[in-house]
């Protein structure tokens, strides 16, 4: 009967261990990122990209972003990080040489698949709608990159010692990152680096603003012009709007 008692004890022990293990499962539902809704707050950041004003050979936004956010690129197409990148599109519908130059970045979805996927809530949606990744928490599982249907996420494959902007932290290798709409600047009442640079180059193609404020420039633009969002059919509710796409 020795065995039976041992057995009982081990069964109780493992049940207890399983229970303790399941505890965070119960408590964490409260703070789940997918349940955070933005509609209740006053601020809800969004961006309009007016492709009619975006010159084909201009990379002012890309360069400013790299400088502001301490991103280093080495010309490696596989591993380089571009929080915002410019691509050239060619039509597959008509034979005419129709070309467009389009900036692509994180769409700051209202239903972000990346935040849903992140096992440790290192990626989350702020109350003002910005989707952000905490580089000090991210453990580098890369599931957010798998989940993002826009390929807007990149990974720090190398250690990056490049820090032209001392006001913004560097990232260690092994963590994911993406555009955070320069939340550190927006919080100070400034505008994102790409928007600033676009204005300085007199293109004025990027407009950032509060979607919840009906009198803001961005809200007026979206109301009065046909805008398009990327892959709306997925139900992610992106907050980057393209004019002239």
């Amino acid at each position, binding site marked *: 009967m020795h*065995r*039976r008692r041992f*057995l009982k004890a081990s*069964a109780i022990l*493992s049940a207890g*261990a*399983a229970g303790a*293990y*399941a505890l*965070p*499962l119960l408590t*964490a539902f409260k703070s*789940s*990122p*997918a349940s955070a809704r933005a509609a209740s707050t006053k601020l809800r950041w969004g961006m309009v990209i007016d492709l009619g004003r975006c010159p084909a050979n201009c990379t002012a936004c*890309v360069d400013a972003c790299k400088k502001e956010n301490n991103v280093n690129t080495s010309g490696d*197409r*596989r*591993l380089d*990080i571009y929080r915002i*990148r*410019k*691509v050239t*599109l*060619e*039509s*597959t*519908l008509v034979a005419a040489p129709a*070309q*467009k130059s*389009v900036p*692509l970045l994180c769409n700051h979805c209202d239903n972000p698949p990346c935040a*849903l*996927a*992140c*096992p*440790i*809530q290192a990626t989350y949606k702020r109350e003002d709608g910005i989707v952000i990744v905490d580089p000090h928490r*991210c*453990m*580098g*599982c*890369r*599931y957010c*990159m*798998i*989940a993002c249907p*826009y*390929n807007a996420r990149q*990974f*720090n*494959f*190398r*250690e990056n010692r490049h820090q032209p902007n001392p006001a913004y932290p560097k990232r260690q*290798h*092994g*963590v*994911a990152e993406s555009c955070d709409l320069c939340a550190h600047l927006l919080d100070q009442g400034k505008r994102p680096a790409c928007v600033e640079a676009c204005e300085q180059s007199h293109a004025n193609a990027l407009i950032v603003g509060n979607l919840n404020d009906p009198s803001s420039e961005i809200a007026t633009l979206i109301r009065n012009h046909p805008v398009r969002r990327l*892959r709306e059919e997925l139900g*992610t509710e992106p907050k980057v709007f393209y004019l002239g796409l």
Partner: protein
Amino acid sequence: MDIEFKQIEGRSKPFYLLTIALAALVLAGAYSTWMMNQHGLYLSGMSNRIPWGLPIVMAVFYIGLSAGSLVISSLYGVFGKLEYKPFARVATFMAMLLMIGALLSILTDQGRLDRVMVEPFLHFNPLSMLSINPFLYSSYILICTAYLCVMMVENEKWTKILALIAVLWAILVHSGTGAIFGFVPRELYTSSLLPPSFVAAALSSGTALMILVILVLFRLTKRPLAPKPMLWIGRLLAVFIVVAGYFVFIENAHRYYVAASRAAEHDYLFGGFHSVVFWVGLVFLGTIVPAAILLERKSGNSRHSIRRVACASVMVVLGVLCERYLIVIPGLSHPPGLIPGWMITQSAVEEGIVNYCPTSYEIMQSLGVVALVSLCFIWGLKLLRLLPTEAKGMSHG
């Protein structure tokens, strides 16, 4: 009937040589894991477009194998078939070790190993498939361990209860693993068929591996093994292969039929390296040939039949490895259709269809996990009473 379980001898020269070789591989794996964590994952073949590679393929493969092992043990534990009792302990032990291998593969694949054991406990996201699953995996390991313990002390009642729990939990584990991919918005991933299809492939690969392990172990330790139960498991394997093949067929037919995913599916079926893996590895060598071998009725003597079952099992294990590769990689290598009607022609980063090739670091890391699982397995056989002295075929109890 009383079955005597006995440790393996484990004193021969080959046993120690195998131990040393496996230990060396484990060290090599540990070294490459350390290198990738010190210097960054640029040492792997992964990229921003294909952020999951060989370690995840292997993890998914292990998870599948683990289920199949449990099926063999459940033949005794759940269905009470006494002629499979000789294999129940070793099968459960295997299921447990393979799941540990899966967790280890996922764990060593993380970008920041220093946070892996901390953050999931502090900031658990209950809605992420990647946190639900490690929870299922680790609890599955606990359940398997408890199941093995009650079998070792011959407690019939608890064996029945825990076997049932383990089998139900295994179905959860495998559906969950399928959902890691199936519940993600990507052309070749999104599918509610992926979880059940994952279970089917898991059953066939795990059963096949278990057949091979049993045959090799009984042969090497010179223990008598009646052919009849093995042939019956072979027939079970044939059913699993057909079901898994059916899922693969339906899923791909659907993707090709529906216009929205046809371009991606066309690339998958006729694109490049992964198409060869699909047609040759999965469809022909992994499904059609072994199914034909196992279903052919014209059986000669039993030794001949056992050899055919073994041959088919090798093919199935490799075929499912191909299937696991096909779950993970092609879905990433195909670009998302960002703007319909427009094609990206210039960009600073990779666009369009991209390729993945594992580096020696990744391969060493994966081999290291294989070696660690094998090492634990052979030493488990030496230290624990897992294998019976003989396995007689007998009529149903």
